[in-house]
């Protein structure tokens, strides 16, 4: 599996630091193609992070029998609601360490929130729709970003200092991190490459008779 198809390239392209509002621009590539849904985060190594006064509202919808969005980064302590926007019931669950929960068969319109207070990765599934998969990346820091379809992610609002730069993606075995110092006049770090796993998501056929036997 040393094929270049699975080479994950993280290029830190821009670094701008002002008094208390730094901004790091990252481009995530898969080979020559941009890679979406990668989560880039900066965790300060020398200072502690105080939780925000108000956590943002985060929603992961079940729409067209999929989780939307696929990957959701949140800061630890955030509540996430799971509205069902389909005309069929869902039965979502998590068996991941940071948060185990189950919401047995609930109908359209129902929405209940779950508190994610420990950092880590939570994989979401639906008990009756095998192809449904979603991820919640719970981070101990407010400075994170998710790469868009162009592969770009911008982390901003952090002060200069020493950080653990962490990258995660559903196709990475575990998060990859390295220590960087972000200060005025510093050059952006060298790009680094990572190995991706093959995409093992269930290829969902349209909602009808499955092809092949």
């Amino acid at each position, binding site marked *: 599996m040393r094929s270049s198809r699975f080479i994950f390239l993280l290029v830190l392209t821009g670094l701008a630091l002002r008094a208390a509002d730094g901004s790091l621009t990252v481009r995530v590539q898969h080979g020559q193609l941009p890679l979406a849904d990668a989560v880039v985060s900066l965790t300060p190594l020398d200072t502690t992070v105080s939780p925000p006064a108000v956590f943002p509202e985060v929603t992961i919808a079940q729409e067209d*029998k999929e989780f939307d969005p696929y990957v959701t980064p949140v800061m630890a302590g955030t509540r996430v609601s799971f509205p069902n926007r389909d*005309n*069929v*019931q869902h*039965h979502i669950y998590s068996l991941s360490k940071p948060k185990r929960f189950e919401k*047995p*068969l609930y*109908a359209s319109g129902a929405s209940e929130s779950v508190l994610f207070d420990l950092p880590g990765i939570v994989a979401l599934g639906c*008990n*009756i*729709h*095998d*192809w449904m998969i979603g991820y919640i990346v719970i981070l101990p820091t407010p400075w994170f970003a998710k790469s868009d379809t162009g592969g770009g992610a911008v982390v901003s609002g952090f002060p200069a200092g020493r950080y653990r730069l962490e990258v995660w993606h559903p196709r990475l075995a575990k998060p990859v991190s390295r220590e960087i110092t972000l200060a005025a006049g510093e050059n952006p770090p060298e790009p680094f490459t990572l190995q991706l796993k093959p995409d093992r998501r*269930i290829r*969902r*056929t349209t*909602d*009808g*008779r*499955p092809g*092949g*036997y």
Partner: protein
Amino acid sequence: MPGLPSFRHFRTRLLVLILGLLTAALGVSYFLVTRANRANAIAHIEENLAGALRVFRFSVELRQERLAQSAKVVSADWPMRTLYLQEELDRHTLRSTLVSYAERLDVPVVTAFGTDGEMLASTMEGLSDELCGPFRHLVQKAESENADQAGDFAYLAGRLHVLVVVPLYAPRPNIIGWFGAAFPIDDTFAQGLKQTTLAEVTFVSGVGETSHRVLATTLPPAWASIVADQMPASRTEAAQTSLVTLDDEPYVTLFIPLGLLGDDPARIALQRSLAAELAPARDLEDIIVLISLAALLIAFLAALGAARNVSQPVQALATHTEVIARGDYGARLDLHRSDELGQLAESFNRMSAGLAERDRVRDLLDKNVSPEVAAQLMREGAALGGEEREVTILFADLRGFTTLSERMPPRELITLLNRYLDAMSGAIEAEGGIIDKFIGDEIMALFGAPVASSDGADRALAAALAMRTALAGFNATLAAEGLPPLAFGVGINTARVVAGNIGSHRRLNYSVIGDGVNVAARLQTLTRDPSHGTDIILSAATLAATRKPWATRHLGVLGVKGRKEAVEIHALA
């Protein structure tokens, strides 16, 4: 060569016979070999097809079992039971769940039923509740047999499927519904069966429908229609084998009825190409043909050689026969062979040698005896014995030859004598007389023997006159050569004498004996008597035997030496 065409004919016949027999033998063996090969190939294919049928049944059983297992897994699933037992059944959710489970279990069709067999949801598009009859049939069967599963073949939305139903327990033995699973008998299934069995597979709808419908096949559509048309019309449950021609190639085809739930039985056609099965045998048959052709060619050449070997010497013998027929007995035929034909050639050579010898003998005989005697000898053989008959005997003696012999050298003397005798003989033979013998310069001639004739006396007298004339002519020649003239005396008598081949076994002479012979010789000596004044004297018996009138002069009656009776003699004028 008149014999040649028939020999050619012989050669042709030999060739035709040998090649004909060989061709017939090779042809018959080729026919038998191809027939046996074909029969073997068909038997072998039938065995294979029976095996393919077992593979089909086993494969269906296996899949049916797997379907049942999968259906049982789904029926035991907690969310599934929960879904079933909700206050109000959410069919949409049930259907989307079934789709998910069908993918998870890799089962083409999953359908959920209520306890009464009402269809709740199905992953199969277009499968309405009305079309679920076969599933309900199986539900009833499982219920009545109190079985954990039931399965069979049936049509689902017009397509052939293998169906299985299992109950949904919550908990066992409380049945809260039924799960049905199915997989289609489609082209993909047929291809899979073909990969295992190497047989062409076609499923055709039952005879109850207006026309046979191809349900699934490994064949091109046009061929599959042909197979469908050839399906046995009867509804018998027995499998049938027949030959179906597809694209000019025969396929051994096994038709097997396949029982369906609530419908006429469908049929499976399992086929294998006879040509493909025969291919290795065909190679062998081609080799046999090549060997046969080579054998025919060799036989042709050998027969040609053999025919030549026989016809050429036979032709040579024929040619040789022609040569012998032309009288060339000296020619020899050498075939340089030790077989029967060589022996035949040897026999021919001995025969021609024998003919040459006979010819030589005949030639000598002609010279030594008169032609008539020789002919009689050739005809009747040289038998001793004799017969009594009336013969006119003529003796002619040369006068003055003794004197002449003293004056001439022997060779010239013999030459002269031979010329004289030749002239006399000519005169005698011209009148039909035969020279009995030459006694030195004396001639003894016979008239009326060996061939009897009634006018012997007349011819003897005519010969005597001719001799006289011939002598005159001869004398004229002698005079021209400066030689003295010759004279002769002739005595003629007619008497009954004994004629026959006289002598020893080694040497025979046709002659006559008897008193009459002596009288004739005696009459010749009488011509020496000048008183008679004639050179030809004949007896009264001769004169009496004549039929024509002859000018004669009576000389008187004389006693003849050694004879009691006197003889009346006459001179021929």
